[in-house]
């Protein structure tokens, strides 16, 4: 059975990587250096300790807030999906956080932060097991305003969110095992590459690209990976019939709304923690720009959907809030509050138009992930050039397109191979019956009669 082979393969790869990591180059503490306990105690007694401790704590809280976004994704996706696929959607989200953190520990963290030589046009580095021996170099202000472990866990939460963006766009018809294979490969091998280009000191950062918290590196990346998969996968059965679009209604607007509010909350950590310390001015500025852009996104989508579609649409308005948040993510610390509102408003307008556009070209995206993350990810990156002076338009365009293209091409090839080898879609009967029964043998709502089977 495919799933057994997959698990075996992952187990073998994981063990191999672990082995490589532990056998790989380790700092040889040859000569006598002060012990970690002494050095650490000395640092914690110094005047730098206070700022370090508060910054470290803030980063850890932010990591927890970004973690919470997984609950947000789980609820948004299941709310906008049909009841008969709820278990499957939730399961994918459970898998992603479980696989994502471990894969980032086994390989991704060190692949993303290889420490490219200063000014080098770094493009790729091999990953390894993330853990280090505790030392002053890694656990005090000598490393950063936070410890190595804090760095790992904060970044690990971001890596997992990139995979979960894809799960929404492919929901309700993707084969579970194929998704698990693809998501594992995407998070483990693709995400750290583009991340290293900027945050790992690679060629994008060497050329002045600016992506504060990941409009391109997380959202654009996820959005374009999602686009490639949605194209290869095809639309849900019955969505596009005889030239018309037949809506497939989400089964729980309350769940979808809860999800968006959770994502909004998590974004305070997503952006707030990306300051990478507890600097009062910057963190408070980022909280303000983040919130204003979210609000702008909501208002922009509310009015755009109301005017274009005659009635104000709740799900579009929810997508609008997310669009505003994605839009400000590249420039939350460089775009001033007034322009943050404008960034949000434009993102809210764009997301509505984009959702309608993708339906028109028959790319089925049940939750609007491609529009929220892909389209608004590009816009957010360019907004840095439009509304701040942190980076010029040219490199922003080059950067966002190269990340998007890389994610798209990687996904198109890998997902295409998976399709050829093991198929990516459930059968028509399984899709009608619902993935909960066909893939999991479980009912999300066993007490309720289900009308869509």
């Amino acid at each position, binding site marked *: 059975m495919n799933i057994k082979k997959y698990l075996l393969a992952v187990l073998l790869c994981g063990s191999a990587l672990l082995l490589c990591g532990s056998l790989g180059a380790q700092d040889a503490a040859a000569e006598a250096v002060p012990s970690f306990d002494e050095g650490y105690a000395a640092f914690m007694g110094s005047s730098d300790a206070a700022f370090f401790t508060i910054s470290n704590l803030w980063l850890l809280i932010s990591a927890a807030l970004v973690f919470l976004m997984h609950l947000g994704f789980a609820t948004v996706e299941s709310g906008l999906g049909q009841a008969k696929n709820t278990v499957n959607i939730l399961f994918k989200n459970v898998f992603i956080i479980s696989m994502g953190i471990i894969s980032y520990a086994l390989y991704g963290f060190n692949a993303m932060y290889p420490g490219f030589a200063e000014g080098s046009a770094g493009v790729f580095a091999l990953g390894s097991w993330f853990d280090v021996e505790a030392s002053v170099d890694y656990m005090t202000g000598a490393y950063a305003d936070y410890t190595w472990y804090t760095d790992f866990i904060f970044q690990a939460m971001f890596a997992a969110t990139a995979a979960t963006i894809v799960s929404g766009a492919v929901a309700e018809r993707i084969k579970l095992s194929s998704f698990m294979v693809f998501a594992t490969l995407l998070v483990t091998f693709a995400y750290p590459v583009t991340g290293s280009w900027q945050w790992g000191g690679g060629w994008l950062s060497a050329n002045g690209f600016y992506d504060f918290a990941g409009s391109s590196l997380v959202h654009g990346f996820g959005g374009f990976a999602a686009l490639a998969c949605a194209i290869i996968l095809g639309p849900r059965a019955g969505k596009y019939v005889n030239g*018309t*679009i*037949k*809506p497939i*209604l989400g089964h729980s607007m309350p769940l979808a709304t809860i999800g968006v509010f959770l994502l909004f909350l998590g974004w305070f950590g997503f952006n707030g923690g990306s300051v990478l310390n507890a600097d009062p001015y910057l963190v408070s500025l980022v909280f303000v720009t983040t919130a204003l852009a979210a609000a702008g996104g909501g208002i922009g989508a509310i009015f755009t*959907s109301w005017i*274009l*579609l*005659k*009635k104000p*649409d709740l*799900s*579009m308005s929810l997508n609008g809030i997310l669009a505003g948040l994605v839009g400000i993510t590249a420039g939350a610390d460089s775009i001033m509050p007034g322009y943050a509102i404008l960034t949000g408003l434009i993102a809210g307008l764009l997301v*509505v138009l984009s*959702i*309608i556009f993708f*339906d028109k070209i028959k790319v089925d995206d049940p939750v*609007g992930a491609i529009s929220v993350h892909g389209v608004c990810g590009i816009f957010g990156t360019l907004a840095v050039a439009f509304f701040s002076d942190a980076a010029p338009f040219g490199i922003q365009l080059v950067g966002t397109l190269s990340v998007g293209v890389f994610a798209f091409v990687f996904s198109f090839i890998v997902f295409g191979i998976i399709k050829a080898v093991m198929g990516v879609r459930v059968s028509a009967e399984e899709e009608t019956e619902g993935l909960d029964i066909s893939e999991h043998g479980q009912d999300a709502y066993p007490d309720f009669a289900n009308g869509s089977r």
Partner: protein
Amino acid sequence: MKLVKAIIKPFKLEEVKEALADIGIEGMTVTEVKGFGRQKGHTEIYRGSEYTVDFLPKVMVEVVVDDAEAEKTTDAIVKAAKTGKIGDGKVFILPVDNAIRIRTEESGTVAL
């Protein structure tokens, strides 16, 4: 015995139940159903695409009564369920061969 089957607007259920209680009807079965007559449906919109909803939610009330009570029962239901607007529903009267109370195994009109 007759089965009086009424398809009514869902919000009228309480009123119909009380009207039946007033004439001494002590039991009924209620089902949530969907349907349409000449009322047709309406258009809704979701994420930019329009669709028509033809089937409207209704409630079906079923009561089995003695032949003599059938007309009284029907009148009570019609009066309570009527709004005067399109979509009020319909009442059907069907013959019943027998009725049995499961607990005591009585049959006939004593089982009603």
